[in-house]
């Protein structure tokens, strides 16, 4: 097992630079998720770690060894692909054994390792089957088994769950996490799904347009997003954002929205009086209250019960805000009510640069 250090890494396709100097330190035994919208460069970064893409600038080292010029097979990594990339003409056993056969390993040792991996993944009964004869989840497990058999220093996962249906995806992500807890192999996992990132990662790297927006544990990102992009990307449903101006009065800070509503911010918030800001608050931190109480006046537009909680989308001034409640209010569209922000739960960002204040 090994750490992975990414130093000022750049990637350009011709003149078009897609990754603009990224620094990430991935510790030994850590499970790090690279997350971001399509085209943010996360897969490219992973492929550079794997050695499938040339590194245009900077350095990547695995276990302290710079691997920029090391071919993939000597990097001691294993990769799980989005489409699994199982060899269709080989059965499960041969798929898993392929890398060891190429290395001319002892057949008894191959058998032992493949069966060991099959055991971990409950693939024992399927060793003689061809990939076509397996379900999506089983193929996914074979792809992981192929990685496990190699006993690599680092596992690389490239959106491994996006071809699965929603239920299986939830099940498989738990399995992958449990597997990591058992094998403790350093893992780098790419996904565009922030829920996957939140649930699986030790640490998350949020990427956007070839830059790292923030690195942190899931709850750090959720509780203290470093900028507007992370605030909007992490958390589902997304954080409510209100534009306004920062005002201070009596030692308290407020954001006065464009609709002239005052939202209390934490008193130690940075920024200058009158600065253009964005106030963010998570749907779960907005309480539904009767029209008589203090709070943001709102008009119910859409109600989405999910079972656990109910999402209430309301019109607040010129913006739509979402409140999540576990209580079951008998609400109807058009109803007027108040939304009460939880004290201390607001986030304030600079409107121009998007940085947290």
């Amino acid at each position, binding site marked *: 097992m090994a750490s992975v250090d990414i130093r000022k890494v750049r990637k350009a396709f011709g003149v078009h630079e897609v990754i603009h100097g990224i620094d990430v330190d991935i510790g030994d035994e850590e499970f790090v998720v690279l997350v971001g919208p399509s085209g943010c460069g996360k897969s490219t970064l992973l492929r550079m770690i794997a050695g499938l893409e040339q590194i245009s600038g900077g350095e990547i080292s695995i276990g302290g060894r710079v691997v920029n010029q090391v071919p*993939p097979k000597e990097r001691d990594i294993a*990769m799980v692909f*989005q489409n699994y990339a199982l060899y269709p003409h080989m059965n499960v056993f041969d798929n898993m054994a392929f890398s060891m056969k190429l290395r001319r390993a002892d057949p008894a040792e191959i058998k032992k390792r493949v069966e060991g991996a099959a055991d971990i993944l409950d693939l024992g009964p399927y060793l003689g*089957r061809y990939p076509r004869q397996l*379900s999506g989840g089983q193929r996914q497990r074979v792809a992981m088994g192929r990685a496990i058999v190699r006993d690599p220093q680092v596992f690389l996962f490239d959106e491994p769950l996006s071809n699965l249906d929603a239920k299986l995806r939830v099940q498989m992500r738990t399995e992958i996490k449990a597997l990591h807890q058992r094998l403790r192999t350093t893992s780098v996992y790419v996904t565009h799904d922030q829920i996957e990132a939140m649930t699986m990662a030790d640490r998350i790297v949020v990427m956007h347009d070839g830059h790292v927006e923030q690195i942190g544990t899931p709850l750090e990102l959720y509780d203290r997003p470093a900028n507007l992009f992370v605030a909007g990307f992490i958390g589902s449903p997304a954080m409510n954002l209100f534009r306004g101006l920062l005002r201070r009065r009596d030692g308290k800070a407020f954001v006065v929205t464009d609709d002239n509503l005052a939202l209390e911010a934490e008193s130690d918030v940075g920024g200058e009086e009158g600065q253009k800001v964005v106030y963010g608050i998570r749907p779960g931190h907005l309480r539904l209250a009767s029209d008589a109480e203090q709070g943001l006046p709102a008009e119910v537009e859409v109600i989405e019960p999910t079972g656990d909680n109910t999402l209430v989308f309301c019109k607040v001034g010129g913006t739509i805000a979402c409140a999540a409640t576990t209580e079951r209010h008998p609400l109807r569209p058009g109803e007027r009510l108040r939304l009460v922000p939880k004290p201390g739960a607001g986030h304030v960002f600079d409107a121009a640069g998007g940085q947290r204040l």
Partner: protein
Amino acid sequence: MYVDTKAHGTSSKALAAHRFRFGESRGFLGLLFMLPAATVLLLFLAYPLGLGVWLGMTDARVGRGGTYIGLENYEMLWTDSVFWLSVFNTLLYTVVASVFKFALGLWLALLLNHHLPFKAFLRAIVLLPWIVPTALSAIAFWWIYDPQFSVVSWALVRLGLIDKYINFLGDPAWARASVIMANIWRGIPFVAITLLAGLQTIPPSLYEAAVIDGATPWQRFRFVTFPMLTPIIAVVMTFSVLFTFTDFQLIYVLTRGGPLNATHLMATLSFQRAIPGGNLGEGAAIAVSMIPFLLAAILFSYFGLQRRRWQQGGGD
């Protein structure tokens, strides 16, 4: 009275239902839609084939309908050394040309599958030998192989490799090699482009997985490309073998079967005996003798083509 009405009502309803079902029946509609194609096939394929088989058992000549003589034509051919020479020539021609077409075509396909500048243009150029009418390209080869004006001989003499011009189409061994060369040149594009199409269906991630698994370029070809290409290889080579075995135009323009029948294929011999020679029955018998060979090739491909176990989809 009451009963009558009821019976009448039922029968007319049943009739309507019957008519409805007739129009809806998959079997009937299927037959109906197959009819045009079946007519064309029967008229232009089955009938000439049947006629050929029948002619092979007659002593028909040009301008005179024959009478049935059983297998006499075949008995004659059995002892005809020219016929057996043409069988040997055809097999040699087919085997050598197919082997080269496959090897070179696969090689070309692998090259074209790389990222090359002007990729589409190069691929289009590769197809040229195949789209030029055979008679035309054969005339070009005729010039290339000309005993006096051959550009190949000229180049080799200039390079100092040979002293005198090679008699490409006049010497039996050279003639065989020359027509085989021309056939290979003409057949490579078909193999190359079809195999290229096959190569492009192999997902790139399989190669990436193989690279990470530690496969060398040769091992990637041997364990990924080749096995995944086998189904399409079977199809392509079946067609290639059939085309080569029944080749006629190229030989007829280049050598007419000479010198000393060294390049006579079964198809050219059949034509020569039947039309210029006037022995329709004998020509037909030679043509019919090709059928067992062709059937063998088709059966071979039928078993080669059978979906391999790994291609079979399976339920979960």
